[in-house]
């Protein structure tokens, strides 16, 4: 039985001129309907095929790929596509988690269960280890997302990985809008945005010199809404915190941060809210959004109606400067 369609208006009603336009009203049920004509691929099927093509192409040309897996929704979808690309063979590369140590327990539980279920090999690059032995020091603001770069680069060179699959999407952030699908990193892991290889047709060039590696983004052309529609279509399981739940939170810079071992709210600030997470990262700087979206269909409708980008809503670290993401990417961040 299908619920009656809910009429929602996609995105906001901001205007940049005095010209009014027709609202694009989309039925929620339409967002989940994926049927098209004969010999025609639906948008999700076209994106899926492109991602599978990228996985097979880069994996065939290089020696030691690895897939970055955090338990976040994008990395979960990426892993799902990798399993499809090589079926009935197992995924022919390990997965790596760059662990900030500031984890949501349900995400770590999900990570370990997924690795077990699909018989994957997990490599963990631990920020905590680097802090414990003094190679890294805690930042005054307590966030560890920017500290992930050094353990990531060390793990890449220690294991000799030459292709690193990441779940970055071009719609996420303006520096990522200019990123290639296959993106070269020099031997210091640096990205040079002014000197990127042209990327033509579907002919990817992952070759590189010794010591260099490529970052590969199979989800480049997916939007947040595509990811959610695909999760709904494929019935992909996610960590529970992506769906509405009651949690103790407190407000910082307009975001709801979780009360936990890595945050230090004043007692008077703490409130209990119905929230869910739109992104998953360092618990100390990833914000929750107020939401009553209990299941994936609710989330699809909510994301379609959202007027704020997921990073704008949930990432303190991306708000630091106008080019915060570009600067971190240049240094080798994912």
């Amino acid at each position, binding site marked *: 039985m299908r619920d009656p369609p809910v009429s929602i208006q996609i995105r906001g009603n901001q205007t*940049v001129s005095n010209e009014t336009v027709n609202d694009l009203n989309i039925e929620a049920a339409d967002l989940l309907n994926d049927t*098209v004509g004969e010999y*025609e691929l639906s948008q999700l099927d076209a994106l899926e095929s492109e991602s599978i093509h990228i996985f097979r192409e880069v994996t065939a040309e290089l020696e030691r790929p690895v897939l970055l897996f955090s338990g976040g929704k994008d990395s979960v979808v990426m892993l799902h596509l990798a399993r499809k*690309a090589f079926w009935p063979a197992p995924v022919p590369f390990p997965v790596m988690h760059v662990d900030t140590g500031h984890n949501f327990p349900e995400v770590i539980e999900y990570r370990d269960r997924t690795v077990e279920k699909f018989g994957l090999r997990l490599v963990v690059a631990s920020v905590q280890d680097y802090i414990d032995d003094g190679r890294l020091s805690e930042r005054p603001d307590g966030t560890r997302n920017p500290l992930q770069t050094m353990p990531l680069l060390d793990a890449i060179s220690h294991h000799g990985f030459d292709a690193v699959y990441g779940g970055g999407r071009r719609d996420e952030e303006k520096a990522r809008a200019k990123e290639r699908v296959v993106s070269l990193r020099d031997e210091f892991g640096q990205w040079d945005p002014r000197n990127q290889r042209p*990327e033509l047709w579907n002919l990817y060039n992952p070759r590189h010199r010794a010591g260099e590696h490529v970052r590969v983004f199979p989800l480049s052309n997916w939007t947040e809404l595509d990811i959610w529609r695909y999760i709904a279509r494929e019935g992909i399981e996610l960590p529970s915190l992506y769906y509405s739940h009651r949690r103790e939170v407190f407000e910082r810079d307009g975001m709801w941060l979780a009360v936990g071992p890595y945050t230090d709210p004043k007692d008077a600030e703490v409130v209990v809210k119905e929230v869910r997470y739109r992104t998953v990262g360092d618990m100390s700087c990833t914000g929750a959004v107020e939401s009553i979206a209990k299941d994936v269909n609710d989330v699809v409708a909510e994301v379609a109606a959202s007027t704020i980008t997921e990073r704008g809503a949930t990432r303190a670290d991306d708000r630091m400067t106008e*080019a915060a993401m570009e600067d971190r990417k240049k240094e080798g961040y994912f």
Partner: protein
Amino acid sequence: MSTLLRLATAGSVDDGKSTLVGRLLHDTKSIMADQLEAVERVSADRGLEAADLALLTDGLRAEREQGITIDVAYRYFATPNRSFILADCPGHVQYTRNTVTGSSTADVIVLLVDVRHGVLEQTRRHLAVASLLRVPHVIVAINKIDLVGFDADTIRGVQKQVSEVAAGFGLTDVTTIPVSALRGDNVVTRSEHTPFYAGPALLELLEQIPNADSPTQEQFRFPVQYVLRPQAAAVDPALQEYRGYAGQIASGVVRVGDRVSVEPSGRPTTIAGIDTADGPLEVAFAPQSVSLRLTDDIDLARGDMIVAADSAPEPTREIDAFVCWLAERPLKPGARVLLKHTSHTVQAVVTEIGNRLDLDTLGGTPATELALNDIGRVRIKVASPIVAEAYATSRRLGAFLLIDAQSAATLAAGMVASTTVEEPEPVNWVI
């Protein structure tokens, strides 16, 4: 819910491309409140009166500092019927490289022309690139019509000029739309100011335009990307003997039971099965990613190609091609490079450089080398046979990259003009 259309935009400096892209994104509600706020904040910091929508796409620090667009930016928007991937190609710096890159994947290219200036040198070049790259549909948006008072004669004059230039480049499917990106006329909704124009608004047209050619019109071509032989590691013990050839269908349709041949060996065989992780298929078509099983036990590897038996292209060791040179160091005859064609990478030598293409006329001038952003005609010998077709026949089988074997840099975008070069034809710019 929807199909996917790949779109590229290009234009000259100050023709209002950023405004048009901004309007498409804005009017399809694809700009989020926080993105718009950020743009407004930066615009105000710079003393601008209105939000500069170019800042939405000029994401890099250097671009913001210099107020220019350096690189192709990818943007996403959707209507109820269609999702769009927009490759926004900047007009000034490295425009050839950027327009070639954006055009290579585009189903549609939207070129902007300022109605007050008509067809400029750069418009001609963009039309030439669209022709050379065989973008299936070309839309020319004649912009700023509000600035000429929506004058029908002026607009018709520019339309005529565009049609003549486009026809000169052999472009047949060219649609012109009079628009005002700033005011929104004919962008998302039809304008009441253009009673002389009976066609659709730009977004309407983009929603209706058919995707590239229907797969049923093309020959089946399947470059083998990856051999799937899981043996003991199979995800299901019943599949330990599995042997499938994974790839993305480059063109056409394939059915179980189809007679095919395996190139370059030319061995005939039959499709035994079409597999995906979601189960077997009876029929598959471009651009699906699938895995094919064959009835005969043939030793196939990455770089081989499975093709319809009745239309197998002749493998070749020499091609005649157009290349767009993308490297700082010029291309000279005798250059040793790698050539990547579908899933096949081979050693190659550029034996001859013919003419350099003059993008203003699509005429040629004799050249001894090709510099950065030059497009020229060359002959290339490859170390082992490739299964190529003319780019005019197949964008997928006619396209290739030249790669520097040492630095691994991508040196050139190539398009096969001819695979039969026994009799060297005089270089003649028939495109």
